[in-house]
């Protein structure tokens, strides 16, 4: 299946797509989770997890480049019709769950930091209506929103200068003070923050000269790693270890020290501005989920879009407490981890074998002649 030229986006936009979906609600409070195991050495895990993502991006490109670009047909080609369909369904579900996690977690932040009495359904429906508006206009609009979602909030990085007046960079010493096992566990928990890049699997056919876009995907991920690393190091120097363990949204707590004459508290500003980032996250993942569903079930795209948005809304409303939201985050983390650590390498290995076999067959054919 070939996508029409006027629906395609330029390869360099992959940079914004990958980066914007990776930076999301995780940035607000991943530090505590990562530092839980490897302590203040876990910045190494942040770096390490980022490197793993680079490898996974390489794998995704290998699979898509050699497999013709459409993930659903690759699934059936590699694993047969039935298992292939199961994979397709899992992928649809995965992006839907991912959307729910991001949206509900962000709504929780809004409820805790700004409006404790605001009901979930109100803010969720506003978000989803907006998402519907963006996604129904097609992938190019989604990409445009992703572009804005990277460029506009970039200025927020300046806010990280303010906590420096309280920083104790010696907190990071001594380096390499934990066991290998701890590094691995914290690398695993860091993965959730980097996830989202798998949407590559879905939007690849929408990229013009998709093969040339690989370097932009790597750049996108590289910027994400850089941002996470900077925030991690600033956070670790700002909080003492046990203090960090108590801060659910460490980045926001850090921004709480920012005081300038015209705005006394920047965390509110940060939370409000972050809704733009969250919108890009949700738009892209809902788009991915509904697009896959469209291809698999052979129905119209916006019907699936409405259906999935409805499911997301209902689940978001049902998740009422911090405990449940935490649970959802943990499960998504596990799901995402297996997605990254097992599913993508599996795809990669299967297509390597397939390609080898193809080459081998061709060689035999040519030698037989």
């Amino acid at each position, binding site marked *: 299946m070939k996508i029409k030229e006027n629906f395609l986006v330029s390869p360099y936009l992959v940079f914004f797509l990958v980066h914007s979906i990776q930076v999301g609600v995780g940035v607000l409070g991943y530090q505590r989770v990562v530092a839980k195991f490897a302590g203040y050495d876990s910045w190494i895990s942040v770096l390490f997890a980022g490197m793993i993502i680079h490898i996974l991006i390489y794998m995704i490109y290998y699979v898509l480049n050699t497999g013709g670009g459409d993930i659903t047909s690759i699934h059936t080609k590699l694993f047969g019709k039935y298992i292939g369909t199961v994979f397709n369904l899992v992928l649809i579900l995965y992006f839907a769950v991912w959307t729910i996690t991001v949206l509900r977690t962000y709504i929780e932040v809004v409820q805790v930091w*700004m*409006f404790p009495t605001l009901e979930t359904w109100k803010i969720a429906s*506003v978000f989803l209506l907006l998402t519907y508006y963006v996604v129904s206009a097609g992938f190019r609009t989604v990409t445009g929103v992703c572009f804005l979602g990277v460029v506009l909030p970039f200025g927020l990085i300046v806010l990280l200068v303010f906590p420096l007046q*309280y920083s104790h960079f010696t907190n990071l010493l*001594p380096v390499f003070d934990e066991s290998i096992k701890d590094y691995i566990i914290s690398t695993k928990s860091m993965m959730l923050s980097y996830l989202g890049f798998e949407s590559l699997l879905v939007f690849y056919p929408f990229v013009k000269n998709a093969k040339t876009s690989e370097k932009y995907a790597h750049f996108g991920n590289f910027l994400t790693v850089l941002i996470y690393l900077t925030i991690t190091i600033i956070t670790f120097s700002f909080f*003492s*270890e046990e*203090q960090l363990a108590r801060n659910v949204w460490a980045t926001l707590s850090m921004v*709480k020290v920012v005081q300038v004459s015209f705005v*006394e508290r920047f965390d509110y500003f940060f939370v409000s501005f972050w809704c733009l980032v969250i919108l890009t996250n949700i738009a892209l993942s809902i788009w991915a989920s509904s697009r896959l569903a469209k291809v698999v079930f052979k129905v119209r795209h916006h019907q699936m879009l409405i259906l999935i948005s409805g499911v997301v809304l209902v689940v978001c409303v049902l998740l009422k407490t911090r405990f449940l939201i935490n649970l959802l985050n943990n499960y998504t983390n596990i799901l995402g981890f297996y997605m990254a650590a097992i599913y993508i390498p599996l795809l990669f290995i299967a297509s390597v074998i397939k390609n080898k076999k193809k080459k081998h067959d061709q060689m035999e054919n040519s030698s037989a002649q």
Partner: protein
Amino acid sequence: MIFLINISLPSEIIDELQLIQAIGYDREEGDQIRGTATFPLFNPDGTVKAEKFTSVSNTSRYFLSKINTQSPKPLTTGQLRIVLFENKFAEKGVLEIVNTLYRDPNIGNTLHMAVVEGSTSKLLKQDYAANPLAAIYMTELIEQNIKTENLPKTNLHVFLYNFYGKGMDPYLPLLKMGKNKIKLQGIALFKEDQYVGKLNHNESFVFKMLVDGSKAGRYEVKLKRGKEKGYGVIRNISAKTKYHVEKTNGKPKFTLNATILGEIHEYPHWLNLEQKPSIDLVESAFKKEIDMQAAAMVSKFQELGIDPLGLGDQLRRRERGWDFAKYREQYKDMEINVSTKVKIVQTGIIE
């Protein structure tokens, strides 16, 4: 759409709120808490007046609800600047209150806290000449002293950083009410979350130098040459401390090397600052006094079993697999030496 979400949001209009600026906590009989809150009242003629409510309850937060029953407009904590603890109250521990403040998203991390010698309720009810709002007066007093005097950096974040950090203990400014004014007495030292001791203004100079490094503060030093006696004042231009640790038989030994660059502000007439020996005399007298005071201060910390200088943290940075419990045991009879180097770099615009 924006309109839709707008009408569904609970709005808070600033004219219809009572913005609490300071809260003081005192201990009442039977472990109850007396809370006093002040907020500004803006009069139509442009003047401002502080209004106070006070009430007794079992928890730090419920008293807010109780005083809300006395207030014509809802009370909010969004503009809270300072929280005070009566010394008797702080001796029993402040953690619950501090954590409650920390949990509140409306309250910034730069909130100031202080221990008061005497009743905070009386302190907050008094009117002061310096500023009609006691809360603003105290906040400015503390910030001013952090910048230009002997007070090390303190606020809610710093307190909790030191509290939760292993091998560190927190400290807060110590205030006292005088007639018509509030005075910064020095520094209140905490063991975990309990107020256990204090440093006076003079000792604070040394403390700030050791804990933060400082670019401020004045120190009065006794000078003596032969029969002649007098006092000199030295203004600190820059003071820094380097920590060194040696380990002998598993026991750490600290050497704190402080360097002070100072400027002479005042000196007795019999000194001639154009002559090198006179400068030497000031330097050595200053050094001697600082060394002595630092040694006394460190042994006071050891006696109290507190570590506001963060020596444990210094050790943690240098040591793999640092054992906090063991360090705590060793702390009381650890060898800690302070040695100061003083350099007088300026003598003002006249010689």
